């Protein structure tokens, strides 16, 4: 699909709508994570509305691209994007974290069609995604595996076991997109346990690395296209993002990692997201 200005504008508008759904669902849930989901809204929108091969009416389609969310706590953005993409009604988003809901606080594969895995405990998704990529290649299935990870979970040993495995087996059908927002639950990543130089680390593990602005829709889509063209190794798209992106009051503030907007904050936050529309 040609990437026209109209297409980009439509995707940016969609990301804005999805951010507002995220705010509403977190407010209704009265708990959950706000910064990460808002920061990944552009990337999720690009995947579900442009770059990934998938069918909301047939979530088990054998040739679908697998979208694996490793850092399960940002699942509100996945739920909201899936709802807007047609997997289930958008109103169902308001059941997030409630008893009996398909939208568990951390995603459970068996509860909701279209989730590839159950996640929450950090650092396991990259290995699971690698296992999927390995098996798909065994079966000569051309589907790709997109694995969405956080920067904080790069502190987990399991992540590097997965990175080593994907590098060894040259899993070119695996594309990791890392939410490099520099925060984790108790502060800034470089204070708690420094991660840099992340790009060099992955290159040393035999990955192709692309660094982008995770809020520039054209960059995101171009990077995914580049990753799809790489045939020798797995690709890491290191996406520099702003935690809480779109809600001015909370951008960059790690304290919003794990709390939802209150009733009082919600209308103001929604207004701020709406105000990001450039004409």
């Amino acid at each position: 699909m040609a990437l026209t200005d109209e297409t980009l504008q439509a995707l940016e508008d969609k990301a804005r709508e999805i951010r507002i759904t995220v705010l509403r669902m977190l407010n209704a849930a009265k708990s959950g994570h706000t910064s990460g989901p808002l920061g990944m809204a552009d990337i999720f929108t690009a995947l579900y509305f442009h770059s990934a091969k998938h069918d909301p009416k047939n979530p088990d389609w054998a040739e679908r691209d697998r979208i694996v969310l490793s850092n399960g706590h940002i699942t509100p953005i996945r739920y909201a994007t899936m709802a807007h993409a047609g997997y289930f009604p958008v109103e169902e988003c308001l059941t997030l974290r409630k008893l009996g809901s398909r939208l568990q606080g951390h995603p459970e594969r068996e509860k909701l069609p279209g989730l590839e895995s159950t996640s929450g405990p950090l650092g396991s998704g990259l290995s699971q995604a690698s296992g999927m990529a390995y098996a798909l290649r065994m079966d000569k299935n051309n589907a790709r595996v997109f694995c969405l990870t956080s920067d904080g979970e790069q502190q987990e040993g399991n992540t590097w076991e997965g990175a080593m495995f994907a590098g060894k087996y040259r899993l070119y059908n695996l594309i990791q997109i890392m939410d490099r927002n520099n925060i984790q639950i108790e502060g800034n990543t470089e204070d708690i346990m420094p991660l840099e130089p992340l790009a060099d680390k992955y290159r040393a593990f035999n990955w192709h690395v692309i660094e982008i602005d995770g809020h520039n829709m054209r960059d995101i889509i171009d990077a995914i296209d580049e990753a799809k063209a790489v045939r020798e190794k797995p690709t890491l798209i290191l996406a520099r993002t702003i935690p809480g992106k779109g809600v001015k009051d909370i951008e960059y503030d790690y304290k919003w990692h794990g709390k939802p907007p209150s009733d009082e904050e919600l209308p103001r936050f929604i207004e701020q997201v709406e105000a990001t529309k450039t004409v």
Partner: protein
Amino acid sequence: MINPLAKLVPGLLEGKPEKKPTRDGFGNGTVEAGKENPNVVVLSADLGDSTRAAWFQKEFPDRYVEVGVAEQNLATVGSGMANEGKIPFIASYAAFSPGRNWEQIRTTIALNNMPVKVCGMHAGIQTGPDGATHQMLEDIALMRAMPNMIVMVPGDAEEGKKCAVAAARNNRPTYIRYGRASEPVFTTPETPFEVGKALNLWESANPKVAIFTTGSIAYQALVAAKTLAEQGVDVIVTHFHTVKPIDREAIITAAKNIGKIITLEEHQTTGGFGSAVAEVVTEEYPVQVIRMGVQDEFGQSGEADELMEHYKLTAPHIVAKVKSVTGV
């Protein structure tokens, strides 16, 4: 007498039995399962020869995946492959898998409900000279507490093979516990095997004690039963190759009809097979349950048979326990 319906090795208690490690059953069982179903794959964490995963590799090199010394990766790559329709057997030492990667198994295999077969080798004190670090004694407790998980502990190499073949067919998360040491083979291909169903190995007319076993210690129980019979003490020996789901009916029947139960396992008595039996008994028909196993302590270096003697898990200790319980 030996239950004829169990179709055990003929003349089992007369001569010296053939000995093989139960892990040989893993090697043979995965090869058989691999022939039966092309989706069966084996993942190994750098211990292929020792775990017998190499036997599968030899037959199916394209379906063998080396993950390196990385047990967390072993479980999670396995989970991912199961996502794509594979039936992964993941092999390492039980101390590391499920010892080290328990959370990955819990989240990405059990809760995720993926048909990954976690195969823990070198479980029990008979791992021997390697010492306590490698003698996994808590794995049954760890794995049976997990929803969705099937837990099997084969009694010998033959049964170990049947467990692997059954696991490949069950479409469920499954744990199979295997041992390192060469131990008597007492079952045959004809021995009945149904997951979740206990098997009476030894029966008698008027039993005073029911001896329940899991794993290779069943053979010790048979030797003890023979000695006891010669001394006029009747018992039954019931072997549970499946710890979860446990055969409740077999337990309740013995509680009602016999009234005293001794459980045997090469595992901590806390949370293991004996605990599983006691849970059923206390709820359904409370009678005395005496749990023989490792009593809340770690193992140590030594030869397998020396350790079994040291931890009082050999036939003479079982005989003595039965006598003390029955007051003979």
